[in-house]
């Protein structure tokens, strides 16, 4: 039984009047990948965005509850520090268009400061290697990040997030905008990454959840319906709702 790196207790979240996340409690063990699945609009993106406090940066967005990172409630800490510790990869690659490939990966480190040039260089190389992009870009680190393909840009975003050495990595449907080959690459990545950093991945693709995640949680209309080891959830779901979703009756 691995320790729980991230523990969510009674999380609620609103967009204006919409109660998007309703009383969810969930734990994320270390060295594991946890998938969050559910139909569109079930609140899975909102949920994950509450974990690194990105949710509250939208106007009229609010959250309540506890999110404990190693026992500390992130809502009591400085958000900029939390967001460094809990990294995020978004649905569409959002590389910084005015920076080079090197610049993108180094961006987080440069923000926090206190690193020597050598430290930044080696961190960039290491992150690019971890996100399986190094071989493809090592000759062109100073070129614009925009000339990379979609799949490459997303891996760049992963490298950028990894460079600041987060303790948890959140991924909001990271492969949904990508072609199958890039998707497969990213799934391989997650497989490798989860041994170093616990990964929480939101996905609408059940097969993807089955492929990469150790545990899977099913959300519906803002509530947590069921969470279990992935195989158990898919083969022997205990809730009727879960079963309906998995067998494709809705969503």
């Amino acid at each position, binding site marked *: 039984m691995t320790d729980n790196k991230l523990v969510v207790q009674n999380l609620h979240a609103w967009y204006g009047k919409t109660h998007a996340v309703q009383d969810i409690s969930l734990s994320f063990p270390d060295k594991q990948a946890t998938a969050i699945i559910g139909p569109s609009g079930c609140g899975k993106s909102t949920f994950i965005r509450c974990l690194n406090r990105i949710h509250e940066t939208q106007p009229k967005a609010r959250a309540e509850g506890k999110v404990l990172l190693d026992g500390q409630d992130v809502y009591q800490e*400085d958000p900029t520090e939390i967001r460094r510790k809990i990294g995020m990869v978004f649905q569409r690659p959002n590389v910084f268009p005015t920076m080079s490939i090197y610049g993108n990966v180094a961006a987080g480190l440069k923000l*926090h400061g*206190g690193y020597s040039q050598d430290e930044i260089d080696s961190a960039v190389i290491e992150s690019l290697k971890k996100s399986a992009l190094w071989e493809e870009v090592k000759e062109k680190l100073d070129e614009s990040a925009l000339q990379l393909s979609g799949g490459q840009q997303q891996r760049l975003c992963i490298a950028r997030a990894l460079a600041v050495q987060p303790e948890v990595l959140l991924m909001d449907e990271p492969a949904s905008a990508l072609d199958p080959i890039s998707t497969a690459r990213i799934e391989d990545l997650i497989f490798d990454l989860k041994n170093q950093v616990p990964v929480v991945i939101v996905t609408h693709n059940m097969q993807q959840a089955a492929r990469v995640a150790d545990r899977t949680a099913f959300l519906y209309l803002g509530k947590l319906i069921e969470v279990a080891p992935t195989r158990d959830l898919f083969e022997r779901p205990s809730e009727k709702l879960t079963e309906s979703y998995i067998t494709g009756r809705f969503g």
Partner: protein
Amino acid sequence: MRPPKRLRRRLKSAVLLGLCGIAVLLMLVPLASILYACFVNGAGAITPDFFLKNPPPPCNPAAGAPCPVGGVQDAILGTLLLVGLASLIALPVGILAGIYLSEFEDRPLARPARFLADVMTGIPSIVIGVFVFGIFYSFAEAGWISPFSVISGYTGAVALAVIMIPVVARTCEEALRLVPTSIREASLALGIPRHRTILRIVLSAARGGVITGSLLAVARAGGETAPLLLTAGFTTGSIFGLSGWTPSLPVMIYEFASANYPNTTQLAWGAALVLVLMMLLISVGARLALRNRFGGRVA
């Protein structure tokens, strides 16, 4: 090393973002100052005489003998005539040109016309004044008009029209573009000929934007000074129409401000107050009208 740096960053963030707020306040200072100055200095001039009399001769206040104040009647009349004639020329031409740019955009002339219209809106208005002056000057040289008619209300109105046409054309085009294609198609499918589709149906659907754009162009013309300085001249006497030197409120403000006699200076402030209030009213009105029409933010 990490915590102190983080505090500094947060402080820097707060300071810089606070400066942005201060920037907004700083921007409002001149506006407030201008409005205040116009009110304080000009409100006293707004008497019935303001609208009924013409400016007095320049005079320095001698001890015990106050200077007559007078009014700006013919400057107002001049502005109305100039802007009126200019609008009569510019609005039909501009709206038709806007229709062409929007409804006939696949024709070869559309792209160069649009580009040149944008170019024209960027040309300084004084250059337009020089241009129109030059045209009428050539007419005089060719003997078509008398040399004394070169500077006249007609010249001034043409100058204002030239300034207005590209502006009206582009705003009209933008307004027409917002009308969904399906409306045009529905009309044509009913057998309504194209010219009537455009004039009755599409133009009508876009009338809010067209009217607003035209109003803003007219307002802008009312505030123009430099081209009128060159083409319409100035006089403090009565005018009977647009032939000959035609005064206007903006030019009058300039002339009196430069002359610096206390009684006429007050008239200048009064005129400035009237001008600013009118421009603000039209601006705000246009903005509100556009917002209500589109139910959201305008710009």
